[in-house]
C-alpha cells in the first residue's frame, strides 16, 4: 500500500461520508457545510488522478464560489434551519425499488465492462495542453461559453439594478 493509496481512500471516504450526511442532515446549514467536504474530497481525488487544473478550478468555483453563495443564501433566509425536510407522504417502497434497480444496472455495467488499463505516466502539468486545446481545437465552444457567461452577467446586472 503506497501513501497515495491511503490518501486516495481517505479522500474517497471523506467524499462518501459527507455526501451521506448532506442527504441525511436535518439542519440545512449543516448540510451546506457537509457539502463543502464533499467538494473538498472530490478535489483531492482530482489531484490524485493528475487533473490538477480541474482540481483547482473545482476548489475555486465550487468551494470558493457556489458553496459560499449557497451558505450565504441559507444563512440570510430567516428560520430556514428548522425546516422539516421530510415530506408528508413517504414513498419508501417505490423509492427502494427504483434505487435498487439503478444500483443493479450501474453495478452490472461496471462489472461487465472490460476496462482497459493503460500504463501511462502521470501528466506533470495539464495546464499548457489544456490551454492550447482550448484555443485551438475547442475555440468555438470556448468562445460560445464566454458569450453565454457575458450574457448571464449582463442579465444579472440589469436585474439587480431594478
Amino acid at each position, binding site marked *: 500500500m503506497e501513501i497515495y493509496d491511503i490518501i486516495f481512500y481517505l479522500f474517497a471516504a471523506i467524499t462518501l461520508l459527507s455526501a451521506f450526511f448532506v442527504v441525511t442532515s436535518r439542519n440545512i*446549514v449543516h448540510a451546506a*457545510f457537509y457539502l463543502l467536504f464533499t467538494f473538498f474530497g472530490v478535489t483531492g481525488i482530482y489531484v490524485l488522478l493528475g487533473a490538477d487544473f480541474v482540481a*483547482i478550478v473545482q*476548489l475555486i468555483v465550487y*468551494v*470558493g464560489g457556489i*458553496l*459560499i453563495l449557497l*451558505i450565504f443564501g441559507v*444563512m440570510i433566509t430567516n428560520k430556514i434551519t428548522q425546516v422539516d425536510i421530510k415530506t408528508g407522504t413517504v414513498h419508501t417502497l417505490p423509492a427502494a425499488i427504483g434505487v435498487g434497480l439503478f444500483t443493479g444496472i450501474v453495478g452490472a455495467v461496471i462489472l461487465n465492462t472490460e476496462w482497459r488499463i493503460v500504463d501511462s505516466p502521470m501528466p506533470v502539468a495539464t495546464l499548457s495542453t489544456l490551454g492550447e486545446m482550448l484555443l485551438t481545437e475547442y475555440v468555438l465552444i470556448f468562445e460560445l461559453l464566454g458569450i453565454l457567461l457575458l450574457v448571464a452577467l449582463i442579465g444579472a446586472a440589469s436585474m439587480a439594478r431594478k
Partner: protein
Amino acid sequence: MIYEWLYNITGSSILSMFVVSLLPLFVFILPFALLAVLAERKVSAHMQDRLGPMRVGYHGILQTVADIIKLLQKEDLVPAATDKKLFNFAPLLVFAGSYAVFAAIPFSSIFIGSQIQLGIIYIVAVTGLVVAGILMAGWASNNKYSLLGAMRSAAQIISYEIPTLLIILTIIMITGTLSLYTLSELQTSYFWNWMILGGPATGLQKILYIPLMIIGCLVIYISTLAEVNRTPFDIPEAESELVSGYHTEYSGMKFAMFFLAEYANMFAVSAIVAIIFFGGYQSPFGYLGNAIGLHWLVPIEQFFWFTAKGLFFVFVQMWLRWTLPRFRVDQLMAFCWKYLIPISFVILLLAGLISLI
C-alpha cells in the same frame, strides 16, 4: 526538494511527507506569529508615543509567549446557544485554509513545501476555505454581530479576489508560468530583474511595463490587504461597530487559532506580493555565497531575503493599520468595483498589448 532529501535519508515516503507538511508550521508560522504579534503591539505603541508591553522579558520580548500560556490555560468556553459542532470546527477550518497556503510558497530555492505547477492559483483557491470557515464561525456563534461580521467578511474576500486574480493573470500572461518557483527563478540575479521593474523583459517593453507593474503592485497589495481583513478594510471585525465580528464569541485556544490564522494570512499575502513583484527569495544584489565560493550559503541567504521582504510588507500592513480609519462596508465594495477592478482590467489589457511588441 526538501521532500526528496528527506526521502533519501529516511527511505519512507509517508514519514518524509509528514515532516515536510509540518515544516512550515514549526519553522515558520509559529515563530512568525509569536514575533508578529509582539511586533504589531510594539509598532503600534511606538507610533502612538507609547512603549507597549514591557514587563515579560527585556522590553516585553516574551509577552506573546505569556499570552499563549494564558490562552492555553483559559477555560474552553462554548456559549450555550451556539451550534456546537460548527462552532468548534470553524477555527480549525480557518486555520487549515491559511496554513494550506504555505504549502506552495517558496521560501528559498530548496525550501518549498510542494513545487506545485499551479502555485498562484492554488493559493487563491485555498483561501476559499478561509471564507467558509469564517461564515461557519459567524453563523455558529448565534450572535447577530458575529453573523454580520461573517457576511461582510465573506462578501469582502470574494469581491477582492477579482482584482487579485486579474493582476495575477497579467503576470501569468507576461511570464507564462503559474508556478511560484519558476516565477522566482525568472527574476533572478539583480533587482532590475524584478517584476516591479519590468521583469526579465528588455528594451522598450521593459520601460513600458514599469508603470503598469507599479500600479498593479499597488492594486494587488490593496486587495490582498482586504482579503486578510486588515485596516482600512477590517470591517468584518470592526471593533467599534461589530465588537469583534465573527470571533466575538470565541475565547481561549479557539480564539488563538483565529489569531494565528490571521497572522499567517498576513504573511502569506505579503509573500505573494514579494514573490510576484519583488523577486521572491532572490537577492537584490547577487549572493554572498556565490561570491566567496560557499554555495551552501545561497539557500540560507535566499531564505533571509524572502523573509525580509515578507516582513517588510507585513510591517507596511501594520503601519497602515495604525494610520488609517476604516471604510464603511458599501464604500469598501465601491472601492473594489469602481476602482480596483477597472484598473486591473486596464492593466491586463495594456500588458497584453505590450507583450505583443
